[in-house]
């Protein structure tokens, strides 16, 4: 059985181009004015980066590898350390955005089945959103949070409805008609196709994708 990555989605976040830098510039995730071609390699990004402060993640060299069209950069584990805090984006004197570039690289990695072990633990988020129209902490992490945050937090969560009603607040979930709209939109836009594909890829651990984005089993 062959699965094809939903073209409508991958085409926008990771458009297929001749070079990595072109893909970055054309991606919907990055700003229209992203200054990747103007990068001076000054290192303002790395010197202000919280991930670089504590790990070997280096946004300056990640950008350099993208400029050199080094595709192996998507396999670099360190890109998963970015906090998406946008400090590099603010500090860059040339209007470049390493954090946006890393978002594109991670989408490219995910399309090729790389890093799915870090993604599959978060799938519960998409499921909750499409059911209730609101987000929640992925179920798989609730246990860790209970261990970390203790009995006080668990009791509050158990009493959330009564706490909310004492504060004069209504239901958390979107009302029924709105939920139907949300599901119709996510289906029409291709979100479910992609989520299902990613779930399948994570489950089957089939990591090989050909040039057209088709998984080879």
């Amino acid at each position: 059985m062959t699965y094809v990555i939903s073209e409508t989605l991958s085409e926008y976040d990771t458009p297929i181009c001749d070079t990595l830098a072109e893909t970055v510039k054309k991606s919907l995730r990055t700003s229209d004015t992203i200054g990747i071609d103007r990068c001076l390699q000054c290192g303002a990004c790395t010197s202000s980066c919280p991930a670089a402060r504590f790990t070997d993640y280096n946004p300056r060299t990640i950008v350099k590898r993208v400029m050199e069209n080094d595709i192996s950069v998507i396999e670099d584990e360190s890109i998963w350390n970015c906090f998406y805090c946008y400090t590099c984006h603010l500090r860059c004197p040339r209007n470049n955005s390493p954090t946006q570039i890393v978002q594109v690289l991670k989408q490219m990695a995910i399309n090729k089945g790389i890093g799915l072990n870090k993604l599959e633990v978060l799938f519960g988020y998409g499921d909750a959103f499409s059911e209730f129209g609101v987000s929640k902490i992925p179920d798989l992490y609730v246990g860790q949070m209970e261990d970390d945050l203790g009995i006080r937090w668990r009791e509050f969560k158990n009493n959330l409805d009564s706490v909310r009603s004492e504060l004069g607040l209504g239901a958390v979930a979107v009302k029924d008609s709105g939920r139907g709209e949300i599901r119709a939109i996510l289906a029409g836009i291709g979100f479910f196709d992609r989520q299902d594909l990613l779930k399948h890829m994570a489950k089957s651990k089939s990591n090989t994708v050909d040039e057209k984005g088709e998984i080879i089993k």
Partner: protein
Amino acid sequence: MKQIENIPDSGIFLFKSCMVSVEYPGIESSTTYVFDKLGIDYFVSDEQSCCTGLGYYFDLFDQMSTTAIAARNFAVARKNGYNNITPMCSTCYAINKKACALLNSNDEVRSNINSVFKQAGLDDLIYEQNSLDEVDNFYHVVELFLSKAKQIGKLKLKLNTIDFSGVRVAAHHACHYYKIQSDDMIGNPNHPLLIDTIAKSCGADVVEWYEDKTLTCGAGFSQIHVNRDLSLKVTHAKLESLKEAGVELLLHMCPNCQIQYDRYQPVIEKEYGTKYDLVHMNIAQFVALALGADPVKVCGFQTHSVPLDEFLVRIGVSV
């Protein structure tokens, strides 16, 4: 660039936040308490969905899906005649602003999303180009408070509530408010002072600068779950910086940051064998308290992990 004089006080669509709703619901009740006191004209909808920001930064949601959900929420706001999208969360703020900019400037995105709406029979959701402006229709609640800082100060004096003098207060401004679309923030993104200014108007003794003021909270979306040790290292660094500056109360403007500090401060104390004499509030909870709100029935402090009881007693609030 956004000017403080132009911040609206009517037509406010108070954009609900997922993490406010389930972790610190007192932020929402405090915000509406303050809005009511200030005479701000706002609307809250039970049709509005979450912005998908967490999913987007979990690398699960693509830009097109996130933009389509934003377009639906804009239609909810429009239908009710409240077009100034005003979140309590900095990620909702930045996600919605970017979605609006894309819907206005990218014909392919707009027509793709509108055709999905049409095919689903949801014609009333269709987004007309420039029906919202990505600068003039998007605000963070903290900006509304800042624009009313003088009024808040006067009202507090009149109500003769809490004396905050001598309480060492500092601010953690949320990255996604001032680092993503930095041209549209109020003030200097290298040294944000919105929360500081509001806290001063309430008479607090504000510590305007501490070493790691502009460092991220460390939550990093998936990082606290997938990369927990790294996430806590960053938060620990920031807590150390606050301890150094002798800060007793840290004020927030984003529920994700508040989770990271308030929920994980006791975890860090345990894992790093240290102790912090520091409590946390959202700026809305702080202003509500300053204007006489009940700490439990309005501010919702009972949902916090770092207990505030001792702190509140010390500043003369009965709990």
